């Protein structure tokens, strides 16, 4: 039984669907995060009929209780347990109407020009000079109120990076954030309880709805029906928001154009499930900005759970020269669950560290992976039981970047007055003076032996000029399908060297014109 399409322009939650639904829009967008929301809004504003399918639920500020125990299972992929198959790298990805932008820490950077130059030179990306993206960066920055965090609102946790880097003579800068009326509560990662964060659910998705788009929440795109080289229909399973299990209802969308924006894990996953991988490149070149953290104890209170999570960054080591992997530096917030899962050691020493949580500072070094010719990154694949699987073999050059990054962080923390600095090894390296930082050279830098993280999954559907070696072309259309585009972080052929959300926004805005041409 098929219901009539509903009135346009609303967000429909899974439980509302009491019958199967069929839609025949111009464009179907799978995913409502940084890529999907922006492309949906712009296509709808061009007068195209747009349907968005989002597997996550729709949440509002009243749902954001600033409580980790409820927020991670509700708002993150795999209830917050997503990790590489060897458990070496915890992978944080949002899952909601608005995608990861709902739980993003609001750090907003433009893509460095040198990355686009590298994509052109090494991956054959054509027609994407910095000048092509610049107006789109400017437009999304205006729409999302991107502005620099004032120094007066840098919290003590970030102040350690600001002060320590200055003492060492290292470049550092204030971070720009997509917030308006931010009260610096410090709980960005659990959803903003005062709607200060300009996440997609409050900005581009309402724009899309105003322009007539229909957004289905709790709708997991499962099957893509094809006819020849065209995607003919997308069938989504409707989920019960409470249990996340299928209600038995389904949504069939028959669009003229299909846009995949399910993210760097979700988009390859969907393509692999549907055997849409003609050249075997889907799910390859996954990059993570693998992160190591450095934990420091101060005499003063830091209260790392409070204040904007990231307001200071340093790119002093982003360009290390040929043959090496660069890294950049930021801070990470310290809420109890996140801290406890990341803190080094067990039993008494872990407990002692936790008892000093108010005095703890956490800084992170993010490795800029994917720029060496020999770097293939990780892979996204499917397990025999149907689950998605992420593998990320960590190359020696990435280990070196993480180790050097940890050393720089420890020096910064000690320069800022830390009493002791701990690495995240299971038997942590403890450093009380700059001379002891060299101990990190002898530590076991091995998978699952030291805590590593990623909140920046990228790649998996690399763009490029060569249809044999890449998944999408320089206009983000899939090489091997006539009406399928990929508009999300999965198209990056390398990592970015900056937090990726703003680049995804801008790229999606740029791509909307190309998608519109395909649909027109």
């Amino acid at each position, binding site marked *: 039984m098929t219901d009539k399409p509903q*009135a346009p322009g609303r967000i429909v939650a899974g439980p509302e*669907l009491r019958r199967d639904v069929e839609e025949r829009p111009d464009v179907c967008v799978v995913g409502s995060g940084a890529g999907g929301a922006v492309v949906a809004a712009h296509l709808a504003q061009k007068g195209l009929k747009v349907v968005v399918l989002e597997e996550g639920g729709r949440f509002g500020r009243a749902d954001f209780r600033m409580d980790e125990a409820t927020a991670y299972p509700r708002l993150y992929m795999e209830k917050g347990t997503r990790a590489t198959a*060897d458990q070496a790298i915890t992978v944080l990805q949002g899952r909601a109407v608005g995608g990861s932008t709902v739980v993003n820490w609001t750090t907003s950077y433009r893509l460095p020009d040198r990355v686009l130059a590298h994509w052109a030179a090494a991956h054959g990306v054509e027609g994407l000079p910095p000048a092509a993206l610049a107006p789109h960066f400017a437009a999304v920055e205006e729409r999302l109120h991107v502005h620099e965090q004032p120094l007066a609102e840098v919290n003590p946790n970030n102040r350690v990076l600001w002060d320590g880097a200055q003492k060492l003579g290292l470049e550092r800068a204030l971070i720009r954030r997509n917030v308006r*009326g931010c009260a610096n509560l410090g709980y960005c990662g659990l959803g903003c309880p005062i709607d200060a964060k300009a996440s997609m659910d409050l900005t581009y998705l309402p724009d899309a709805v105003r322009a007539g788009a229909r957004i289905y929440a709790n709708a997991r795109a499962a099957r893509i029906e094809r006819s020849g080289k065209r995607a003919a229909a997308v069938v989504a399973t409707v989920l019960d928001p409470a249990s996340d299990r299928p209600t038995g209802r389904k949504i069939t969308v028959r669009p003229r154009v299909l846009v995949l924006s399910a993210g760097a894990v979700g988009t390859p996953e969907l393509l692999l499930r549907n055997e849409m991988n003609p050249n075997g490149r889907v799910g390859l070149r996954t990059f993570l900005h693998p992160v190591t953290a450095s934990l420091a104890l101060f005499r003063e209170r830091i209260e790392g759970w409070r204040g904007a999570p990231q307001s200071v960054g340093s790119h002093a080591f982003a360009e290390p020269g040929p043959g090496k992997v660069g890294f950049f530096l930021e801070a990470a917030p310290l809420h109890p669950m996140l801290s406890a*899962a990341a803190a080094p050691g067990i039993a008494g020493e872990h407990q002692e560290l936790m008892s000093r949580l108010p005095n703890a500072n956490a800084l992170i070094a993010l490795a800029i992976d994917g720029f060496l010719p020999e770097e293939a990154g990780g892979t996204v694949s499917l397990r025999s*039981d149907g689950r998605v699987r992420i593998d990320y073999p960590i190359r020696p050059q990435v280990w070196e970047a993480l180790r050097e990054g940890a050393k720089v962080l420890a020096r910064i923390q000690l320069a800022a007055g830390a009493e002791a600095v701990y690495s995240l090894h299971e038997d942590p390296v403890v450093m009380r003076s700059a001379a002891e930082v060299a101990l990190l050279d002898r530590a076991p830098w*091995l998978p699952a032996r030291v805590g590593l993280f990623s909140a920046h999954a990228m790649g998996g559907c690399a763009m490029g000029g060569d249809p044999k070696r890449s998944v999408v072309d320089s206009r983000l259309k899939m090489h091997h399908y006539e009406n399928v585009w990929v508009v999300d972080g999965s198209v990056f052929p390398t990592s970015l060297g900056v937090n990726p959300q703003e680049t995804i926004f801008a790229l999606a805005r740029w791509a909307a014109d190309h998608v519109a041409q395909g649909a027109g």
Partner: protein
Amino acid sequence: MARRQRYQRVLLPGEKEGRRDFLRKGLVGGLLLAAGGGVFLATRRTRAASGLGPLQILSPEEATVVLAVANRLVPERVGFPRPLDVGVPGKVDALLAGLHPGAQKEFRRLVNLFEGAVAGFLFEGQARQFTACSPWEQEDRLRGWAQSRVTLRRSGFRALKKLVYAAYYGSPQTWPAIGYPGPPIAPAPVAPERPPAEASEEAPPKPVRAAQQAKAAEPGPRPAEVRPRPTPPGARGAEPAEAASPPARPGPRVPEPSRQAEAPPAAGALEAPPAPRPVEPYPAQRSGVPAPAEEAKP
């Protein structure tokens, strides 16, 4: 103990694993997989603890192993509640219940491997189940997994560690021990398994729905409280010279978000679809939030 030394040796950078290490890793890893291969027998002699509460995924014996791990990961210390008192096994079980069946199976297999006497003998020379070991033997065994040269064991350990610590420190009862004051807005009780808020923001909750919601919530929704935050003594940057540092002021006061989530739409809602209601990104009540710059230092 001489036997244990081998596993605690630190691998130096650039140091290649010896051929014997590789053989042992391969052999032992293979044995481990064989021992854990889909058979959940290791906990058959485990004595289930009492007071575990209802379980959906784990057997009482498996939950007992999780509890034993939690008891070692969080040793007894004044101010720290015991893991059972904050319901760690039940919380781990509840999280597992939301995961893919494949992930549930994997975790149960891990728990059985961890508990098993065979793995204990192979790795630690302790031919005893984990739950039958003394506390110090258990701690040794945990460290053996954490710092093992076999990646499979380290991976398994990390999965256990993350889930157990997250369950424990996610519990508000543990927060006083670690000096965490909790969120700046005290959450009002929320009815469990509540569906997400509907698209409309301006529409006030309909009386009927509000009543339904009140019935569902236990003990009933009440407005969130704003907890004033005193300035902690000795806060970093509190000295007058550093007027730029923010923590010297009290925490931001945030009004209770006025929008109430709506109850699930009544049956047949689709037959009469509501008029399109665009979502207003920044409703007027946002002006009630004081801008941080306006907050005067005390």
